[in-house]
């Protein structure tokens, strides 16, 4: 692969990671619920679009839509019982669900190819134009990432986004103000799964290959760590999280699995010293010259809050 293609494909993976982490940040950072199945929904998206394209010859645009819908539907099924209860039942339910999905990805050999993976997935093609090189695919991934950030900005400044943050702040108070906590959390969870579904579809068509270990429980845990490292509940947090998740494993490629050590240490540092992650630090640096008042105003801004 030419040097330029290498950088472009890293860019593609950055935007795929942004979809995963940005969606998860909505549930965790703004909704106050922990989801341990983002990797599983990533897999649902990859296999739905991959299998549809490879085994049934479905046009890739349609397959991508099916991947998004499939992941959102999975979240609906798992969220329906888990989110009715107050407290963090979603963490436990999603933990189990990711394990179930991993078993399915491995065992449904006739569909998914089992542990050997699904290879030969065609590139995305729309109206005769194939996104078949890193240069072409980069713009598609860029557009998906930009679209997510735009949608999130508008959502967080709206009635639905405000209601979600209120539920995380005080479920009792939010319900007393007329917010349905169950629906609010369920919608956020489904949206976040839909983001992972899109990410999975892009991944499968770009990589032209998908195998179960990419979508297992440890991916879900790492994505939660990336939300925290980037900045839990900060609008720009997932951008930092996705950058770390993309760059650090590449930089440490020579040292097998050393990134896990780096991420683990990073998580401890964030938990102990930087509860608002990289995004919180960068906000503080920008705010410094203008003094504390500006910092508090910025913190109260609808998006930055």
């Amino acid at each position, binding site marked *: 692969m030419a040097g330029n293609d290498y950088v472009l494909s890293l860019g593609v993976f950055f935007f795929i990671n942004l979809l995963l982490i940005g969606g998860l940040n909505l549930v965790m950072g703004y909704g106050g619920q922990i989801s341990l199945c983002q990797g599983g929904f990533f897999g649902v998206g990859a296999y739905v679009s991959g299998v549809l394209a490879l085994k049934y010859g479905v046009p890739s645009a349609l397959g991508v839509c099916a991947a998004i819908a499939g992941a959102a539907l999975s979240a609906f099924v798992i969220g329906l019982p888990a989110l009715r209860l107050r407290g963090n039942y979603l963490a436990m339910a999603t933990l189990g669900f990711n394990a179930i999905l991993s078993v399915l990805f491995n065992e449904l050999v006739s569909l998914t190819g089992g542990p050997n993976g699904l290879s030969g997935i065609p590139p995305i093609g729309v109206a005769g134009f194939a996104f078949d090189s890193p240069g072409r695919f980069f713009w598609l991934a860029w557009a998906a990432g930009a679209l997510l950030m735009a949608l999130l900005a508008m959502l967080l400044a709206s009635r639905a986004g405000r209601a979600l943050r209120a539920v995380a*702040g*005080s479920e009792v*108070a*939010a319900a007393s103000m*007329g917010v349905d906590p169950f629906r609010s959390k369920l919608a956020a969870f489904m949206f976040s799964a839909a983001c992972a579904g899109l990410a999975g579809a892009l991944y499968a068509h770009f990589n032209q290959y998908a195998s179960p270990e990419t979508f297992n429980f440890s991916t879900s845990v790492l994505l939660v760590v990336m939300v925290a490292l980037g900045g839990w509940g900060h609008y720009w947090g997932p951008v930092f999280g996705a950058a770390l998740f993309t760059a650090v494993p590449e930089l440490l490629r020579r040292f097998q699995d050393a990134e896990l050590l780096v991420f683990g240490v990073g998580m401890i540092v964030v938990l102990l010293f930087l509860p608002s992650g990289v995004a919180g630090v960068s906000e503080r640096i920008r705010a410094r010259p203008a003094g504390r008042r500006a910092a508090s105003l910025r913190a109260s801004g609808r998006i930055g809050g």
Partner: protein
Amino acid sequence: MAALELGAVSVAFGGLRAVDDLTCSVAKGAIKGIIGPNGAGKTTLFNAISGITAPDRGRIILDGVDITTMRPHRRAGLGLARTFQNLQLFAGMSLLENVMIGAHTRLHAGWAAGLFGLSRAEEQRAEALARDKLGLLGLEARAAELAGNLGFADAKLLEIARALASEPRLLLLDEPIAGVPPVDQNRIADVIRTVNASGVTIVLVEHNMRVVMNVCHDILVMNHGARLAEGEPASVARNPEVIAAYLGAGATHA
């Protein structure tokens, strides 16, 4: 028809009957005071009315609608609003956003409209409404600050502004005055009267006897979860049982 009717409502926590077979009604347009010693069941009663705690027995009727088993947000949709004695503000959100959440039932935009930015006009109306309510409580200048940064007294004012933003038919105020400096006490009493004059029925749980006696049209005195006395402020204040159980000798000066 009464604004609120409680029919033999009981709420028990284990062996403790926090509210014990209480029957009571609040006339439309009234300001009803509920007083009683700590632990008399006043806040538990509010939690039962707003749907946070399910009653073990009895009926709760809001404007003729049986809401006994209705979930809290549905009750809010019917025009019920409340404040919290133990302050349940959204600490990470600005004062303005807190009050805009109060207006949630007045707005209609859902997730799709939110994601695609299709609710600008409604948002502007909500913001204007919220600023109006903040102004009523003297908090307008601090609209952009985080609610978590407020002192105790201002937080109490914000609780009231947030509850008013839903433009409720029935407003439950849980100790809005306790712990607030005198200048704000008068402001809150004025707000209660103004809001009531605009047609809102109010139920007020409060320990400050001066305000309760001045503001309320009638008063329910609770003790051990049950009714000890009920009636006009003057008659309640003269009731020997009430004086013995709660008001004590000092309160006769109020």
